[in-house]
């Protein structure tokens, strides 16, 4: 089995509704965490617990077996912080759908109107090559989500049947890779079939063909969108592990984990952000070139800033690289921590 039992505990306990304000004293906090226990604690008479606690002014006297004075449990404390953090993220994320509408680049300029002059200058330069942007939700899946829509939209526009056939054969390879690595088929096959379904339906001329509107609708529908994101995560995970030796130095540069640990912690779980390691792996595995345009404040020469970009060219690409690049390129705009979709002029 792929998922060998590597048990590691993080200082985190999700699923608690405790909403601790700052400055609560120890007693209040302990009562809070007692009442905020998950609803599955039916066998515990909560009210009597509370009374028992309140009637004991010095909890340390009941040291053994009274562990519901949870203030010294770092798991609980960190869990609250993590919960708050994820709550904030959820509120932020809910402001935009998984994928926004196509917006002219001027909307990006408006966003930085009172921002850094370097950025304003760079956005102006960006406008020379790119016409529009489509924002993605900042939920840690933005790279995959942006890739999904950009790629499927490209197939829909170009009606490139040959590209679909090519990528399908790559997907078959990815399936074999995962099987070889010991993943049970049932863990990934549903995700594979959802993506293949989307891929086939953007080609016109069959009963299941879909329009741009339907593609956008599906990309915003969690039951499809998240499954496709997870498909990409499986493909990326398989590619990194298959070529562990190649990826090892990259992984070492990002974390102090082994390649397998990195895949478990930073690729397979939903919501884990992507870096160049993930992009190289996905681009290589599917054979799809990706251009990432960087919009940040870095500049060699502040008087005439330039826009940097990086082209991720699949290593296995059989046709000439330039041919590939003109044919199907996913272009993403990277701002530190986030990817959106860019549309060339």
């Amino acid at each position: 089995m792929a998922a060998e039992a590597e048990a590691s505990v993080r200082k985190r306990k999700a699923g608690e509704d405790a909403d601790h304000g700052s400055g609560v004293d120890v007693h209040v906090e302990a009562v809070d965490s007692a009442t905020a226990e998950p609803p599955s604690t039916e066998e515990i008479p909560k009210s009597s617990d509370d009374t028992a606690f309140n009637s004991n002014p010095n909890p340390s006297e009941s040291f053994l077996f009274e562990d519901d004075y949870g203030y010294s449990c770092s798991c609980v404390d960190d869990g609250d912080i993590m919960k708050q953090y994820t709550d904030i993220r959820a509120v932020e994320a809910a402001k935009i759908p998984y994928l926004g509408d196509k917006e002219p680049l001027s909307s990006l300029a408006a966003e930085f109107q009172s921002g850094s002059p370097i950025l304003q200058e760079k956005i102006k330069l960006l406008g020379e090559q790119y016409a529009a942007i489509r924002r993605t939700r900042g939920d840690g899946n933005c790279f995959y989500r942006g890739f999904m829509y950009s790629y499927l939209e490209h197939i829909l526009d170009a009606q490139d049947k040959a590209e679909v056939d090519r990528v399908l054969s790559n997907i078959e390879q990815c399936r074999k890779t995962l099987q070889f690595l010991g993943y049970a088929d049932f863990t990934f096959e549903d995700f594979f079939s959802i993506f293949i379904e989307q891929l086939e339906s953007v080609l016109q001329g069959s009963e299941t063909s879909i329009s741009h509107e339907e593609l956008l609708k599906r990309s915003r529908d969690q039951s499809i969108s998240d499954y496709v994101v997870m498909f990409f995560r499986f493909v990326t995970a398989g590619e990194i592990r298959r070529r562990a030796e190649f990826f090892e130095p990259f992984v070492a540069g990002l974390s102090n984990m082994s390649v397998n640990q990195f895949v478990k912690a930073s690729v397979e779980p939903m919501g884990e952000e992507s870096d160049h390691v993930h992009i190289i792996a996905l681009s290589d595995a599917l054979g799809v070139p990706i251009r990432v345009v960087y919009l940040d404040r870095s500049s060699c020469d502040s008087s005439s800033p330039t826009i940097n970009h990086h082209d991720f060219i699949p290593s296995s690409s059989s046709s000439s690289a330039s041919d590939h690049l003109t044919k199907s390129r996913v272009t993403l705009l990277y701002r530190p921590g986030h990817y959106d979709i860019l549309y060339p002029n």
Partner: protein
Amino acid sequence: MQASRARLFKEYKEVQREKGVDPDIQLICDDSNIFKWTALIKGPSETPYEGGVFQLAFAIPEQYPLLPPQVRFLTKIFHPNVHFKTGEICLDILKNAWSPAWTLQSVCRAIIALMSHPEPDSPLNCDSGNLLRSGDVRGYRSMARMYTKLAAMPKKGAESSHTL
């Protein structure tokens, strides 16, 4: 909902097919509800849980496998990362490190591994964590052993519904 049902059905078939392959784990699906499972796991050897059989309850969310199953101990256990009263488990793969690559079976294996390798620095059971953190391994082991004997081993004469 439909997707999670389909996935769970595949896991069910896999569990039936692999029955007995892992003698330490027995996964049982509720007769009438595929979203409710229980598991019986054997306490790992060379731990104070050795010889005990521990029951786990799985409640599986509708968005499974995008979201992790909720798992807790039904059998009382003295372990730094298990809540002494609720049986809640502090394990990263059941929280933020979950991925659909895990299965109910591999979750059970992860929990067995956690029983062998407690993480006293992120305790849900502070007393147990404090014993280990203060270096009182003997104290921890004897408490854990006592609760294993009390809660996880068949009592002499009583029906042994917990045997694997």
